[in-house]
């Protein structure tokens, strides 16, 4: 799954940063699912960038599930994706299930021929899992219900099983578009308050999601002095754990083998422009 996230980071990389070529390695079947954990507003923008990057740069069909209508595309898209065309946007199908039951039905129906012809989707995105899983649709996040864990497991397992099935179909019909990946975002209940970051480790829903999503991408706001000194920009750290990313510098004197890039910086300007940097 990290290939799409790497593509996002590379496409929206800061122009002032030293340009490095990042090899986008197709994910192994065991790492086709990624969970974005952090502020839902930032996650949603990253998901939209991922959808558009996958559709326009890699020609993938994308299914994007969200409870909230997409009003506008992130400003970074217009600036950084020259190949952005209405045709590539048509490869993204936005669906707006209101409840977890509707979401389960729509994901479960992805194997049906109307959804798989001429080619099945290669990327399934779910925005704000917490809106579906915690305390009813977009409702109060207070009070954990034991049934929510089972529901989180059902949804996660269905997403993974659907991706596994669609991967088999893609291998037969369009091998270059295989495998089918899943990216979802989740904002932990404990992260919405002033509780310490480590508390997210005890979030019972997140513990279940971690069983099924092999890659975790954590978005963490940088509140350090340096970040404040950076001026008006919002600074975020992006940590990838359990990644399959390799990075190769394009500088001539670099003969080093691929190294693992597990951390990025995300800078957000007041106008909403998002830029990724290697720290």
């Amino acid at each position, binding site marked *: 799954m990290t290939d799409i996230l790497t593509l996002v980071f590379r496409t929206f990389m800061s122009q002032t940063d030293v340009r490095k070529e990042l090899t986008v390695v197709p994910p192994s079947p065991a790492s086709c699912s990624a969970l974005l954990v952090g502020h839902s507003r930032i996650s949603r923008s990253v998901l939209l960038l991922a959808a558009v990057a996958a559709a326009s740069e890699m020609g993938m069909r994308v299914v994007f599930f969200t409870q909230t209508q997409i009003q506008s595309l992130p400003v970074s898209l217009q600036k950084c994706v020259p190949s952005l065309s209405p045709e590539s946007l048509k490869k993204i199908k936005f669906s707006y299930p209101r409840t977890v039951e509707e979401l389960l*039905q729509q994901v479960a129906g992805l*194997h*049906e*021929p109307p959804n*798989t012809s001429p080619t099945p989707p290669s990327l399934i995105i779910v925005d704000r899992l917490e809106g579906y899983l915690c305390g009813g649709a977009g409702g109060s996040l207070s009070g954990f219900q034991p049934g929510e864990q089972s529901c989180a497991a059902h949804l996660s*397992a269905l997403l*993974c*099983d659907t991706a596994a099935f669609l991967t088999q*179909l893609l291998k037969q019909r369009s091998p270059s578009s295989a495998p089918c990946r899943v990216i979802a975002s989740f904002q932990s209940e404990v992260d919405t308050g002033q509780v310490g970051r480590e508390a997210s480790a005890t979030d019972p829903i997140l513990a279940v999601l971690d069983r099924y999503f092999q890659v975790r991408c954590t978005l963490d706001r940088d509140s350090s002095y340096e970040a404040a000194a950076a001026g008006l920009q919002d600074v975020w750290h992006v940590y990838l754990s359990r990644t399959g990313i390799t990075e190769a510098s394009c500088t001539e004197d670099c003969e080093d083998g691929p190294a693992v890039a597990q951390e990025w910086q995300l800078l957000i300007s007041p106008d909403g422009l998002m830029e990724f940097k290697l720290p």
Partner: protein
Amino acid sequence: MFLPSVAEQLFQDIQKAYQETSQIPDDLLIALKFVFGPCALQALDLVDQQSVTCLSSPSGRKAFQVMGGSGCLYTCFVSCHYCPCPAFAYTVLRRNEGPLCKHILAVYLCQATAATQQESVSDQQMSALLSGTAAQ
């Protein structure tokens, strides 16, 4: 959500032994009990009662359906571990005491002993079963 390698090896051994002798030898039954605890005996019961069915739809999608001891039907996925039964929610998800429940274990044992029933359903029925909205 993958099996520990010891469990994977055990299922392979059971499959091999069953192909050769049409039974599961005692040492493997003891190993099964050792790895999965009381779940093992209950899962073997489900295998004996031919409780596991592999459902297929015209799209090629497959899923397992397991008839529980109480007569409830549980739909389990092919590629990852999930069962809607209370034991999975409590023992596996909440208490983190093992990788699977007796229904998922029964699916593995049925596959190893070629005891899985086969049934065809429509694509729409398959979608309803996977989403948990099918009338059972």
